[in-house]
Each structure stands twice: as structure tokens, then as C-alpha cells.
């Protein structure tokens, strides 16, 4: 499905952010990446759809090495990878419906996009998804009129509009309160299961990761230091990821 091979990345030469990342992701299930702040989780996720450029290594996805693509081929690969962001990254001044239809922009010609001429089935799918995420009556509201939880629902719906073969989520609950966080995770996990979309998700919250992930990858200082099911995430493993012990008790 997705295989990262010897992936290295550094923003400044000599200061690596990711060191020799090897990771294979199954075509279903939720993989949570945990680790201290600044350890490269976000960079890793952004390398996969090339929002940041890896320095070296291969990203094999659907019979192609994403690291080698550019131009149209890269855009076509991105169409199959949905992304959910920590700060939602909705286009604030567009309506909820327009934000959802952003997910189809890879399939619509720019001329039609400027004139908002989307295919009827895209619009129907957008309304269905709005029903699913419980925002039907918000279709024509501007995104900046929504609360944080509502915005993230739109963010998830936008990603699912792409009919993605892989879903990336970069700290999707870090800007939300605990209750909304759980609701958002339930929505994300539910949609992923129902449509068999594998999810790679960065998380701050270890408990939330244990609760929703099928597999947990621990990172520290740009390296993968733990990889296993939630049940194997022991206190020793957490010490290996985050260092120290005093914070656990």
C-alpha cells in the first residue's frame, strides 16, 4: 500500500529532521504516530504527499515512487491522498459547500472550477457527506462562521470528498477540547472503517492514540523508536519515546 524506504529529510543541511524512516502501512486501519513536539511527525506526514520535499529516500504508493514525481503526475497522486489539518485549514471566506468541493478540484478543469461548475454527482456526494458529519444546514454558511469542532468536521468531509486511498491527519484534535476531540476521532475512524481508507494520524494525546489506533508508531529525534499494537505500548516504550519518567505519575 504505502511503503517509506530510507526516508531522510533536513530543512537545513546537517540538521536532519527525519533519519532513515522505514515504514510500511497496511491498506486498512489507523496508524497513529506519537512522539514529543519537534520530533518530525508533522514533517513525516507532509513528506508523504510532498507538501515538504524529502531529502532522500523512496515513498512507494500505488506502484509509483511519490518522491520522484513532479507536475501533473504529482497532482494526480495527491488526488488519492486526503489530508486533515491541525488548524483545519478551511478557506475561511468560502462557504462550507465550496470547501467540501475543494476536494474535487483535482478532477475538475480550472475553467469549470472558476465558474463553480461541479459535476452533479460531486455536489450530491458533498450533501451526503454533510449529512454524515451533521452539518447539512450549514452548507451555505461561510467557514469562518463555524466553531472549531464544526470546522474539523468540514475538514474531514473535504478530505473524504477526494475518495482518497489514503488519509493523512496532522494533529487533527490538538486545537479542540477533550470531548470534541473524541467525537472528531470517532467520526474519522468511522468514515475510514466504512470506506476502507487507511489512516496515518499524528497525535499528541497518547490515550486517544491507544483508544483509536490499530497500530502505534513512536518517534523520537527524527527516528522511529517504537512500532506495535496499542497493547504493547508499555511504560518502558513510552519512556523510550518521550524520555524521562517523572511525567507519567
Amino acid at each position, binding site marked *: 500500500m504505502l511503503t517509506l524506504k530510507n526516508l531522510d529529510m533536513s530543512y537545513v543541511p546537517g540538521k536532519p529532521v527525519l533519519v532513515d524512516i522505514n515504514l510500511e502501512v497496511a491498506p486498512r486501519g489507523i496508524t497513529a504516530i506519537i512522539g514529543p513536539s519537534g520530533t518530525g511527525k508533522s514533517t513525516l506526514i507532509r513528506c508523504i*504527499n510532498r*507538501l515538504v520535499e524529502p531529502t532522500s529516500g523512496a515513498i512507494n504508493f500505488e506502484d509509483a515512487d511519490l518522491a520522484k514525481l513532479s507536475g501533473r503526475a504529482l*497532482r*494526480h*497522486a*495527491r*488526488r*488519492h*491522498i*486526503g*489530508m486533515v*489539518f491541525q*488548524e483545519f*485549514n*478551511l*478557506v*475561511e*471566506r*468560502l462557504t462550507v459547500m*465550496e470547501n467540501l468541493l*475543494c*476536494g*474535487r*478540484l*483535482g478532477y*475538475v478543469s*480550472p475553467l469549470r*472550477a*472558476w465558474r463553480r461548475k461541479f459535476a452533479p454527482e460531486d455536489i450530491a456526494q458533498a450533501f451526503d457527506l454533510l449529512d454524515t458529519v451533521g452539518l447539512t444546514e450549514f452548507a451555505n454558511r461561510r467557514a469562518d462562521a463555524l466553531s472549531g469542532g464544526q470546522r474539523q468536521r468540514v*475538514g474531514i468531509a*473535504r478530505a473524504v470528498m*477526494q475518495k482518497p486511498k489514503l488519509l493523512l491527519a496532522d494533529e487533527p484534535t490538538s486545537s479542540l477540547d477533550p470531548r470534541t476531540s473524541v467525537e472528531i476521532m470517532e467520526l474519522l475512524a468511522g468514515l475510514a472503517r466504512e470506506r476502507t481508507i487507511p489512516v496515518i494520524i499524528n497525535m499528541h494525546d497518547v490515550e486517544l492514540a491507544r483508544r483509536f489506533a490499530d497500530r502505534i508508531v513512536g518517534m523520537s529525534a527524527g527516528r522511529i523508536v517504537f512500532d506495535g499494537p496499542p497493547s504493547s505500548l508499555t511504560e518502558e516504550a513510552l519512556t523510550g519515546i518521550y524520555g524521562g519518567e517523572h511525567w507519567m505519575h
Partner: protein
Amino acid sequence: MATPATRDNPFPGSPWSRVAVVALVVYVIYACARIEISWERVLVGLDNAGRFFARLFPPDFDRAELLWKGLKESLEIAVLASTLGIVLALPIGLLAARNLMPPWVTWPARLVIVLARSFHPVIVAILFVKAVGFGALAGILALTVASIGFIGKLITEAIEEISAKQVEAVRATGAPFASVLAFGVVPQVFSRFIGFATYQLDSNLRNSTMVGIVGAGGIGGTLFAAFQRFDYDFVCAILIAIIAVIMTGEIVATWVRAVFIDNATLRDLFRRGSLRDVRHTEEG
């Protein structure tokens, strides 16, 4: 408790700012002395001004046809120059935005904008009068150049200030660049663009009454001729007409902004004090 004496002063004074203030004061005094501003000259000037203002009234609207012809031409210059200027400024402003374009594109585009901004419209109008001859065409071209400079610069700045996160999200869907512009960039700059465009129309309306002084068409030529013939009552009529046009333009600009930025409906425009209400509900 830490003793305050051991800490650095968080607001250290800069000796250079004091030097700069003293230098400015000294220069202002020096410049006043050089230009020989004296009390007598101000008094004589006030006296002359009084006589001039007395001759302005009553305004003479007898030559309404001449007045109307000039105004119409000024209006045409303003509208055509604004439209042409804005249409040309949009792509140039986009090309000059450093967050969307590589340096080898932004530098030439920036150069065009800087050149268009270098000279006052009247100077550009003189150049175009020399090039294409007397008349409205010279005025239109001169104000088009001014509009490219102004709108181009502001559009560039507006695009450079947009949120990169919103653009990143649209890019991540695999959208082609033109669609990223439509959904990620334009929504973020549109309301500011309407603001610039209406301001530019307003400013072109004022400038179009002036380029006529150098022979580039419009009411300015009529005004200048009336001045030279000491027809001060006709001058007054022209000035009143210009004020009326500028005020009308101001009102229309406010309406356009209300409709595009605050989503006001046409009915809102005709209800007293309603524009403010519209804006408030939008924020709430």
C-alpha cells in the same frame, strides 16, 4: 525576590532617536528661513484670496453645454482608465507575489509596477500628449499607467499576506495551479481587491479632472481655460460640478463595497443607517 537593580533596563533609550528629532527641528527652522515666509506676505495673500473668492460668486451655469461635455469626457477617462488599469494590474500583481511565483518572474513584474508608480499622473499625461497628441486618449493612457502601479502594488501585497495554510490545503487535494488560485487565493484577497478598485475609480475620477490641464482631455482643460480668461464665475460652476461628481462617485463606491464585502442587498442600500447594521451582523 530579585533585586531590580541587577536587571537590565527593559526600555533603554536610543541616543539616535534624540539626534533624529533635533535634526528634524533644526531643518524645519532652516527651511522656513530660506523660503522667507513672512507675516506681510500672508496678509497680502489673504487679501488677494478674498477678492478672488468674491468674484467666484455667483457661479455662472450659462455655459452648461461646455461644462457637461467636459464632465462627460472626464467620466469616460476615469471609467475606461480604471477598467483597463485593473484588468492589466491583476495579472501583473499576481506575477509579482513572492509567495506564489519564483524570483525570475517576480522581479520583472515588480519592475513594471515600480515604473508605473514612479511619476505623478500629470507627468505621465504630458508624455502621452507628446506621444498620441491632445485629447482623451492621452488621459486614458496616463491614468491606466497610474492604476497599474497602484492596484498592482496593493494586489501583490494582499496576496503576499494571505494565509499559506488555506492554500496548502487546496494544493494538497491535487488541484492544478489555476484552481488553487480560484479556491485558495482569490477568496482571501477578493474583499480587499474591491476596496482598492473602488478607491482607484474614485482617485481616477479626481485625476481625470486634472490631466486636462496638460491637454489630455476632460473638464480640466475647460477649467484651465476659464482660469486664464478670468471667468471666475464659470470656474466656480466647474468646481461645483466636480465636487458633485466626486461625491456621487464616493456614494457609488460605498455601495459597491457594501454589496461585495458586507453582502448587503440593494434594499439595504436605501434604508437609512442600514449599512452599519449589515456590517455588524456580518461580524456577529
